[in-house]
C-alpha cells in the first residue's frame, strides 16, 4: 500500500490537496488568495514529487495504476501547465470580475484527472480520469456566468462531451468483451495471443474508442465543438483546456494505441493517417477565415491535433517521442499566446478581433515581440520549439512510410503560416485603429517569461527533452 502510494505520489498528493482546497473554500470567505497560494505550492510540490518518481517504474493498486517514466513526465508537464495557467489567471480573473474562490481548486481537480489519465493502466481508471477532467472543463468553460457565450460554450461542451463519453465507454465495453480484460497488459497479451472468442467486437470497440478520444483531442471530424467552446470560455480557461486538455487526450491515446495497434496495424495506421491529414487541413483552412483571435487559435489548435496524430500514425518510438516533445512545446507556445490575448482583453469581450491587434507593437513592443515568437513557433519556423516538434513528427511519419502524409502536413503548414504571420502583419505593419487598452500584468509576467523561455530554449536545445522521451519510450515500446 505504501509502495503504491509512493509510486503515484504526485497524483495522490495533488488529489488530496485539491480536496483540502475545496474544504478551505467552503469554510473561509473570500479565500481566493489563500487557495491561489495553496495551489501554487501544491503544483510545485507535486511537480517535484513527479521528478523524484521518474525512475521508479511500476504498477500498483492491483494493476490499476502505473507510475514513473511516462506518467511522471506528464505529471510534471500538467503541473507546469497548471502553474502557468494560475499565475496568469489571477490578474485575468480579477479584471473580468470572476475570481470566485473555487477556481483554483477546480484547476487542481482537472490536473488530478489528467494525471490519473497518465497513470492509468486500466480502461476503468482511464475513464475516471477523463471524466474528472472533462467535468471540470464543463464547469470552467461556463465560468464567466454573466456572458451568454460562455454559458453556451459550457452547455455545448457538456452535451457533446457527454455524447462522446458514451462512445468511449461503449468502446471500452466492447474491448473488454473481445479481450476479456480491462487491464492494458492483459489486453495486449490477449491480442498478441490471437484467437479471441469474440474477436469481431474488437475493431468496433477500437473504432468507438478512437472516436471518443478524438473528440477529447478535438480532431476531425469530432472537432466542431472546439471553436465555439474555446471562443466562449474565459481566455485563461481556453489556454488551459487547449493545451493541458489536448495533452491529456494524447496521453490517453498513446498507451491505448500501443496496446491496440497490434490488432490491426495497417488499418489503424491508415485510419490515423487519414484523420490526421483531414484534421490539419480542416483546422488550418478554417483558421484562415477567422476574424476573432480566440477562434483562430482554436482552429489552429485543431490543426495541431492533426500534426500530433502523425506520431500515432508512425506508432514508433520516434513517433511517441515526437508527440511528447510537441505537447511540451505546444504547452508553452499556446498558453503564452492565450495569456497575451487575455492581457489585452477587456471586460465584455472587447478587443478580441484580429484587427484590434493593429499597431500593438507601438504601445507594447515586448508583448508584440513575444506574440510574434509564439506565432513563429506555432507556424513551425526555426529556431523555435514548434519547429523541432514538427521535424520530429515529420521524420517519424516518413520513417513509417507515410511520405504523402508529411507532404500534406507541409502544405497545411504553409497555409497556417499565412494566418500566423497575418497577426504579425497586424501587430507590426499596420497602424493602430483604436486605443490600446491599458493592462495589468500582475503575475502573468511569470507565466509569460516561462513560456517564452520555454519556446526559445526548447528550440535551441531540444536534446534534453528528447533524451527523456527516448528513456521513456525506449523502455515501454521494446
Amino acid at each position: 500500500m505504501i509502495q503504491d502510494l509512493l509510486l503515484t505520489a504526485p497524483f495522490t498528493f495533488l488529489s488530496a490537496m485539491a480536496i483540502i482546497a475545496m474544504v478551505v473554500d467552503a469554510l473561509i470567505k473570500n479565500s481566493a488568495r489563500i487557495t491561489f497560494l495553496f495551489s501554487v505550492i501544491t503544483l510545485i510540490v507535486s511537480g517535484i514529487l513527479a521528478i523524484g518518481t521518474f525512475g521508479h517504474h511500476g504498477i500498483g493498486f492491483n494493476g490499476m495504476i502505473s507510475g514513473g517514466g511516462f506518467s511522471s513526465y506528464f505529471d510534471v508537464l500538467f503541473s507546469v501547465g497548471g502553474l502557468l495557467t494560475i499565475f496568469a489567471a489571477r490578474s485575468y480573473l480579477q479584471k473580468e470580475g470572476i475570481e470566485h474562490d473555487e477556481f483554483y481548486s477546480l484547476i487542481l481537480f482537472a490536473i488530478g484527472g489528467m494525471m490519473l489519465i497518465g497513470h492509468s493502466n486500466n480502461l476503468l481508471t482511464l475513464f475516471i480520469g477523463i471524466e474528472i477532467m472533462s467535468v471540470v472543463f464543463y464547469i470552467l468553460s461556463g465560468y464567466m456566468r454573466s456572458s451568454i457565450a460562455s454559458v453556451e460554450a459550457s452547455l455545448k461542451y457538456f452535451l457533446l462531451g457527454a455524447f462522446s463519453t458514451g462512445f468511449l465507454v461503449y468502446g471500452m465495453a466492447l474491448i473488454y468483451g473481445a479481450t476479456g480484460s480491462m487491464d492494458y497488459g492483459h489486453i495486449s497479451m490477449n491480442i498478441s495471443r490471437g484467437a479471441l472468442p469474440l474477436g469481431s467486437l474488437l475493431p468496433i470497440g477500437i473504432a468507438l474508442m478512437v472516436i471518443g478520444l478524438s473528440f477529447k483531442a478535438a480532431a476531425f471530424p469530432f472537432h466542431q465543438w472546439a471553436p465555439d467552446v474555446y471562443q466562449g470560455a474565459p481566455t485563461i480557461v481556453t489556454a488551459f483546456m487547449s493545451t493541458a486538455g489536448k495533452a491529456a487526450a494524447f496521453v490517453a491515446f498513446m498507451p491505448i494505441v500501443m496496446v491496440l495497434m497490434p490488432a490491426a496495424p495497417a488499418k489503424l495506421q491508415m485510419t490515423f493517417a487519414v484523420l490526421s491529414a483531414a484534421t490539419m487541413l480542416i483546422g488550418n483552412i478554417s483558421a484562415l477565415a477567422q476574424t476573432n483571435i480566440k477562434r483562430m487559435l482554436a482552429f489552429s489548435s485543431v490543426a495541431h491535433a492533426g500534426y500530433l496524430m502523425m506520431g500515432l500514425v508512425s506508432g514508433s518510438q520516434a513517433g511517441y517521442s515526437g508527440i511528447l516533445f510537441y505537447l511540451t512545446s505546444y504547452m508553452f507556445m499556446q498558453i503564452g499566446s492565450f495569456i497575451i490575448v487575455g492581457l489585452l482583453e477587456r471586460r465584455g469581450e472587447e478587443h478580441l478581433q484580429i484587427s484590434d491587434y493593429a499597431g500593438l507593437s507601438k504601445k507594447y513592443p515586448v508583448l508584440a515581440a513575444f506574440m510574434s515568437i509564439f506565432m513563429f513557433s506555432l507556424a513551425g519556423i526555426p529556431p523555435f520549439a514548434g519547429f523541432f516538434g514538427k521535424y520530429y513528427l515529420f521524420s517519424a511519419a516518413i520513417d513509417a512510410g507515410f511520405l504523402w502524409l508529411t507532404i500534406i502536413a507541409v502544405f497545411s503548414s504553409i497555409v497556417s503560416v499565412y494566418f500566423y504571420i497575418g497577426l504579425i502583419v497586424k501587430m507590426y505593419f499596420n497602424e493602430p485603429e483604436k486605443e490600446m487598452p491599458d493592462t495589468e500584468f500582475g503575475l502573468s509576467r511569470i507565466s509569460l517569461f516561462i513560456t517564452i523561455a520555454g519556446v526559445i530554449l526548447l528550440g535551441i536545445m531540444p536534446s534534453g527533452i528528447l533524451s527523456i522521451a527516448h528513456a521513456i519510450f525506449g523502455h515501454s515500446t521494446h
Partner: protein
Amino acid sequence: MPHTDSAGLLLLPLFLPLLGFLSILFIDREQEKAIKYVTLIFSMLTFFASLPLWFMFNDGLDGFQFYTNISWIPSLDAGFRTGIDGMSLLLVLLTTFIMPISILSSFESIKKKHKEYYAMLLLLEFGMLGVFVSLDTMLFYVFWELILIPMYFLIGIWGGKDRIYAAVKFFLYTLVGSLLMLIAIVWMGLYAKWLPGGHFTTDFLILKQLAPGIPLDIQIWLFLAFALSFCIKVPLFPFHTWLPDAHVQAPTAGSVILAGVLLKMGTYGLIRFNLELFPQSLHLFAQPLAWLSVIGIIYGALVAMVQTDIKKLVAYSSVSHLGFVVLGIVSVTPEGLQGAIIQMVNHGLSTGMLFLCVGVLYERRHTREISEFGGITKVMPKFAVMFTIAMMASVGLPGLNGFIGEYLTLFGSFQSKFLNNPWFSIFSASGVIFAAVYLLWMFQRVMFGTNDNPKNHTLTDLTRSEYWQLVPLVIFIVWIGVYPKTFLSRSELYAQTLVGSIEKTVFGTSAYPKIKAIEVDASAVKKAGH
C-alpha cells in the same frame, strides 16, 4: 577530410552579430545614437574578425577548413558543424563586408523603430553567416529559415507603400521551397538510418558520402526538392516574381543585403547540395536548368528595359545577372563554377552599389521614377562618378568586376560537357548586350540631358557618409576587375575538385583536378599534419 586547425577563428565572426543582437535588446529604445553605433561597431568587429580567415585559409587544402563539430541533438546526430571551403570563404567575407556598409547607409534613411531595425540587421547577418558555414543539414535549415524572420520585418516595417504584400509574398514563397527541402533533408537523414547498422544523421560530410548510393529515381526527387528551394531564392525564372516586389518595397539597406547576400544563398545551396550530393540527377537536369537561366537572363533584361522605376530596373537586372550564375553552375566546368562563384561576389558588390546609388537619389527626391530626373550630373558630380562605376560594373565593362564573372561563366558553358550545346552561351551573351542597353539608357535619362525639373536644381552632392559607403565597394570592383586572381585562386581547388568528382561519377573519368592542385594539396597536408 575536414581540417580543424584554428576552428575558433570561424566561430568568432559567426557569433559576434548574435552578441550584437543581444546587446541591442538591452539598450533603451530612446538611445537612438547608441543603438546605431553599437550596431555599426559590432558589424565592423565582425568584418575584422573575419579577416584572419582570409589570411589563414590555405588554398592548397582540399576539404573544409576551420572545422568545428559540437554535439547538439545527440539522438538525431545533429551537431553544430561548421567549416568553410574556397566558395564559402568568399561569401562569408562578402557578407561581413557588405553589412557595415548597409548599416551605415541606414543611419539617415531609417526614421522609426531604430531598436528593432538594427537588431534585425544583426540577426540577419548572423543567419546569413550561419547558412554559409553550416555543415549540418539541420543547422543549415535552422539558419536558412532564421533569415526569413528579420527579412520579413525589414520589408514589412520599414518598406515602401506595398510593403505588407511584398513581405508576405517573400515569406510564403521562400517557405514553400524550404519546407519541401526540409522533407528532403529528413529523408536523407532517414536514409542513413535505413542502411544496415546506420543511424539517423544530419552530418553533411557523412550524407555526402552516402548520397551516391541513393537509388536514382529517389535522387531525382531529392534533387528537385533542394533545387526548387534554391531556385526560388536565387530567383531563377519562373520563380522570380517575389523579387521585384521585395526589392522595390524594401528599404535601401534591405535591398543591398537582399541583392548582395541573400540571393547568393540560393546559388550557394545549388552548388553545396545539388552539385555535391546529386551529380547523376544533375546530369539529367543541367539542360532544363540552363534553359531556365537563359530565359531568365533575356527575360530579366527585357523587362528591366521597360521599367520606369529605377529600383525595379535594378531588381530585374538581378534576375538577369543571376541567370549567369546558375548557367555557370550547371555547366559543371571549373571555369563555369569559378565564374559563378566570383559572379556571386561581383553581383553583391555592383548591384549592392547600384541600390545604394538609387537610395541616394531617393533620399533627396523621394521618388524613383526615371522621368522625374535628368541632368543630375551637373548638380551631383561626385555622385555621377560613383553611379557610373556601379553601372559600368553591372554592364560588364572589361577592367571592372562584372566582366570577369560573365566571361568565365560564358566560357564555361560554351565548353561544358553537361550542356553540350553552344547555344546556351550564344543566347546568354545577348544578355550582356541588353544589360548595356537598359543600364546605359536609364543612366542617360537620369544623369544626362538638361536638368529641367526645378526640384532637381538644388540637389546636394554625396555627403561624406554616403561617399565612404561607396568607396570601399569601388576598390573591390576595380580590384576584381583588374586582378581577379586574388579571389579566383581561393576557390580554384574547390571548383576543380568538385568538377572532377562530378565528372568521375557521371562519365567515369575526369581530367580534374589538374595535377598542379594536387601537388599543392599534398605538401600542404604534410604541413598541416605537424
